[in-house]
């Protein structure tokens, strides 16, 4: 069985009391969460020296919230796991907590927040834990309601663990569909352990994406940044669709170049057989 928690159980069951305990006792988990939250705040580009109202999506036991407090911000958190929220209460965090499922939409009114952060939570949305769960629809529902609840020119930064390329693409494309601009910033892309994915979303106009950490030159960091649209157009430009005439002609041309025996192109090449055959 895979080690990814998303594959083991739905979030409200996986984060039970035992699992939630780890988030107060394991100093390694605490350190990593704090570091990632620091980086999220950095990527949010909030105005300096002002305390903002932030939304923490998948706030869990409030580890990320504690970092937000240290930076002088007020926050509200949503999470689906009651056990994790109970731990947050024990830790006496300053923020306010709401028990909610992000896939059902963010239950806040328009323009509430100056920014949103999320540490290791969005990958849960790729799961269909119930028969009625449609990951694509849930992602869209989440992003569109989040877009509404942010004030203009606010940003949302999500640290997440994508399983593969297509998950990352699905995530960005659904965010774009909901009206966000932005893309994925990959910190330390060449390191297996320190590599971290951040989805940076902006509401007001497109601005250049922040630079990723651990990349030498600026040009290289641009390569790491993936825009969903650019990816889609690249796909469109590539090889012709398989089993079409264009594809067949290209294949024959390639064989000719390799010096292999190939029948000449005629008006019959790549045509369907008549039904009589």
């Amino acid at each position: 069985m895979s080690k990814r928690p998303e594959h083991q159980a739905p979030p409200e069951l996986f984060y039970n009391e035992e699992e939630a305990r780890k988030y107060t006792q394991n100093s390694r988990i605490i350190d990593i969460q704090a570091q990632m939250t620091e980086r999220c705040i950095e990527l949010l580009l909030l105005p300096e020296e002002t305390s903002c109202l932030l939304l923490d999506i998948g706030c869990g036991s409030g580890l990320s919230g504690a970092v937000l407090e240290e930076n002088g911000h007020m926050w509200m958190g949503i999470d689906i796991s009651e056990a994790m929220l109970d731990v947050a209460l024990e830790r006496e965090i300053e923020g306010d907590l709401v028990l909610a499922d992000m896939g059902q939409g963010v239950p806040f009114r328009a323009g509430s927040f100056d920014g949103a952060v999320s540490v290791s939570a969005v990958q849960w949305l790729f799961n269909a834990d119930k028969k009625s769960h449609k990951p694509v629809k849930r992602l869209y529902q989440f992003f569109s309601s989040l877009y509404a609840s942010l004030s203009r020119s606010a940003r949302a930064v999500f640290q997440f663990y994508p399983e593969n390329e297509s998950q990352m693409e699905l995530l960005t494309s659904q965010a774009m569909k909901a009206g966000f601009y932005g893309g994925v910033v990959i910190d330390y892309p060449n390191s297996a352990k320190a590599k971290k994915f951040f989805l940076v979303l902006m509401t007001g106009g497109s601005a250049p994406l922040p630079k990723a950490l651990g990349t030498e030159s600026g040009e290289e960091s641009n390569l790491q940044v993936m825009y969903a649209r650019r990816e889609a157009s690249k796909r469109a430009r590539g090889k012709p669709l398989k089993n079409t005439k264009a594809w067949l002609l290209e294949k024959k041309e390639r064989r000719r170049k390799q010096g292999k025996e190939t029948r000449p192109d005629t008006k019959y090449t790549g045509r369907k057989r008549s039904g009589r055959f």
Partner: protein
Amino acid sequence: MKLITHNMLTSKCLKGVVTGYPLAISATNIKVTEVDFNPDFIVRIIPKIDWEVFWKAADSIGHSDGLPQTVESKLHDNNDFLKKVHRVLLEVEIDEGHLTCPESGRQFPITKGIPNMLLTEAENKFAMLLKSANDLYHEVFAPMPRQI
């Protein structure tokens, strides 16, 4: 749950609910916790909160004395006023009780200060949208003869 959260919270994710705001509070237990006073944050947040909703919410749980019914920008320099807002907005917490959606009457329980906004699939707005799109497909497109 603090009143600042109440001021932002809606039940718009419910099926058949358009705005779902403001949610009515019925509290059985209210507590007051100490929070550091940050006047800059209060000044920044006042234009963002819906003052009428805030005042009514404070009134419904009996913490409105000293709060004006309308807010004026000249009050922003008044430290006593800011302290009062700070107290009601951030320190007063609803520990037990429930919230009621103004449109559907659905109740959201508050336990240990955490409102439970989880919906069942039947209540979720999006689940309904999905279903209706599916129905539409079967009504409109399925009866058509396939043309190839």
